[in-house]
């Protein structure tokens, strides 16, 4: 029996409906409605209302009108790492300068 579920594409804040039959997996059914430029192997998960990943579940286990959130392999990243990169770069400069000095000293030795 065909069922219609609500699909929410998390990365673009967009809802769409998807109809799938009992023998289709969510992953397979999704192929037909993925936005242009998105491959199905980029899809990481399809989370149902209970938080369960149903990407490889068959239609027979879903219920009509269910809401499913589909995510790509997307991360929201934060960090102070930029500051540390500058510090490391500075110390590298100091090291290179130090090595050059040592070489210079060595070269002037008899």
């Amino acid at each position, binding site marked *: 029996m065909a069922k219609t579920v609500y699909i*929410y594409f*998390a*990365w673009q*804040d967009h809802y769409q409906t998807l109809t799938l039959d009992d023998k289709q997996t969510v992953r397979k059914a999704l192929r037909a409605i993925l936005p242009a430029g998105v491959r199905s192997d980029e899809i*990481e*998960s399809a*989370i149902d*209302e*209970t*938080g369960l990943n149903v990407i490889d579940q068959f239609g027979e286990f879903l219920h009509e009108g269910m*809401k499913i*959130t589909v*995510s*790509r392999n*997307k*991360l*929201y*990243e*934060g*960090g*102070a*790492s*930029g*500051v*540390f990169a500058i510090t490391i770069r500075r110390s590298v400069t100091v090291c290179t300068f130090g090595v050059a000095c040592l070489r210079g000293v060595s070269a002037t030795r008899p």
Partner: protein
Amino acid sequence: MRPTPRKCVIDSQIYSAAIEFTANLERDEWGGIGIGSYTKNNEVLLKGIVFPPQYRSSATYCSFEAKYLALLKFTLGDLGLFPQVTMVAWVHSHPGHGIFLSDLDRQTFGELIGENDRLIAAVIEPTQKLIGAFSGASATDQIEVEKRDLLWKEDQRIRLALLENLLPEMKVLVPPLPDNCTPGNLLETLYVLADKIVRMRKWLATEQLARQASLLAQPENEVE
């Protein structure tokens, strides 16, 4: 585009809870989502913070997956809180680094502002016990942050307190249930919501099972 917020007001309990939580993570950074609302004076009212499980975190980096943001949005909707309560801030901690936004932070903020054009970026500095906030399309403007005991509609506070039970995989910082909340009020809200929320039904069932299990265990304890 709507005017960007010029001030961030954080509920006093949430302010303290956020500092305490991020101070106890062995100086790793942690990212999350601030939920709340806006005033007519263009202030952000930060009423809660939700920290999803971190995909990766270290002393200088943190990340969480987009699916948790979607899950939070659904849950706010299910609780009847959306759109009055929505995502108002992207929050992350900078333990020992100070209040600022790195290039990576600004890049992430740029992606998230598509979800809400009045979004702010909040940075928690647990070692200095400070929270800073940034506003604007590229989060370039540091705005004033005020700690305040926010006033709540009782029903909204009950619903927000339930968020913790509906998102067990996340660390949810919301004010506790009001002192004057009677079991009657709570049950009324619960039953209104339980009609439509699968997650709520599951949680209620688990609670009920746990209660029954403890009742069953009671006679054995007495025998011992």
